[in-house]
């Protein structure tokens, strides 16, 4: 202890105190404050950059989710449209088929009606001709028979036997 006190140099103490305090104030003004501020600013910058990156990531995710949702909706819509179209197609075909059938039925019915009418008119015509022919035959028969009585009677019988009426 005594040696320590002996060694103690007031001059060195004085200079150390003065130099150190001077250095402290100089460095505080010219070095530590700017350095610490710069480091702080940089750390703030990094922090905010990280935060904004995180935000951007979230935004990205949101966008992606939105996109997916949109795609899903679009897909669903397409499906629905396709389904509608298919239904419409089926319905149209169905309708067309029904209409065609009806038309065909109608045409067949008309044709049948026409055929019936033709037949009827033909029969009527035939009947008239048959009647006229019969009257002619009968006239001829009557004329010839009136000349030969026996023969007249035989002819009438024959004629009647031959003529088969419809």
């Amino acid at each position, binding site marked *: 202890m005594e040696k320590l006190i002996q060694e103690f140099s007031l001059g060195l103490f004085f200079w150390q105190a003065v130099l150190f305090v001077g250095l402290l104030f100089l460095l*505080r003004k010219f070095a530590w404050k700017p350095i610490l501020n710069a480091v702080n600013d940089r750390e703030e910058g990094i922090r905010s950059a990280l935060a904004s990156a995180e935000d951007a990531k979230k935004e990205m995710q949101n966008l992606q989710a939105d996109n997916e949702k949109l795609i899903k909706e679009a897909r669903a819509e397409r499906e629905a449209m396709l389904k509608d179209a298919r239904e419409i197609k089926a319905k149209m075909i169905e309708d067309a088929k029904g209409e065609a059938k009806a038309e065909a039925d109608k045409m067949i019915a008309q044709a049948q009606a026409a055929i019936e009418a033709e037949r009827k008119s033909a029969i009527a015509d035939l009947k008239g001709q048959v009647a006229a022919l019969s009257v002619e035959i009968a006239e001829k028969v009557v004329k010839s028979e009136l000349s030969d009585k026996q023969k007249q009677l035989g002819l009438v019988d024959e004629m009647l036997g031959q003529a088969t009426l419809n």
Partner: protein
Amino acid sequence: MQRKTLIKLLSAFVFLLTFASCGEKPTTTREERKQEVKEYVQHHLLDSHDFSLFSKTDENGEVHHYGFPLPVIIWDEGLKVFSSSKFHHGETVAEVDGNYYKLEHAKIYKTDASGTLNYDQDNHPTNAKPIDLSITKGVFMMLLTAILMFFLFRGLAKSYKNNDGIAKGFGRFFEPIIIYVRDDIARPNIGEKDYRRFMPFLLTVFFFIWFLNIFGLTPFGVNVTGNIAVTTALAVIVFIITTFSGKKDYWKHIFDPLGDGMPWFGKIFIYIILVPIEILGMFIKPFALLIRLYANMTAGHVVLGSLIGLIYIFQNWVGGSLSFGLAFAISLIEVLVALLQAYIFTMLAALYFGFAVEEHEHDHDHETEVAH
């Protein structure tokens, strides 16, 4: 591979060194050399009034010093400034304005013209001592360190501005250390609220001690941080800062450590003992700081000096290379100690500042507080 070449180089160096020491004919006895080494180491530990790089004794026994003188500033009935070359390394008496001064063990004494010193029974000179404010070797080194630090850290500070907030240049190496001091010394010990105020002091003291410790390890070794006056100055500054930044809780902790937990007539008997201890603690804390730094650095220098001195005492192959190897190993450890001591000083200073600015809620504190 690299390691092998390093070992080869080292052993070659040791080999040459021992040869060199063997080549010289030992002209002194081992005892004399021991005494010489002891004196040399002791001299090295002290501050000196001139900057000597090395000294040499020639054949005639005359000592030649190589280095440069430093200004001597003393106050003895007026300011006197002169060059330390006037002392001739303590061998002659310096005459200034009709007064005579002599240098003895790095101290200046006022003497008569022939330079007689009167000693008391403890072998200390009783001559009058003028107030010595010389720029000694230590002060010179501190100035150098201060200038170096100023330009280094100002350069770092500027590089942020010129380089978009990113450090550039040599100062960049120190940026992580600055951040370390902030995040691992100041913040946890002082607290998030107050640490900013103490940062300039902590950073300055950390780098100042570290750099001076490292300079102490160079061959021109100047034992600045191993000087009791230097560490005392640092500790006094710590004490002043602690005392002046002490908040209400700090003083309450010293003068009323038990708080309202006990009636006054109970406390008074405890306080007769407790309060003086607390007051003493205020001074012991910085005192421990100054002794720790002084003792560690001085011890390092003594060990290194002695080990290097051993090479000259042994003057043979085995002892020489062994001492060199040991000195080399200790030097490496001293580099670590240089950093470690700077760290410990800063750390403890931060801890004391933390005590001073601590604020706590008054319900749960005292049981834990008394415990420490």
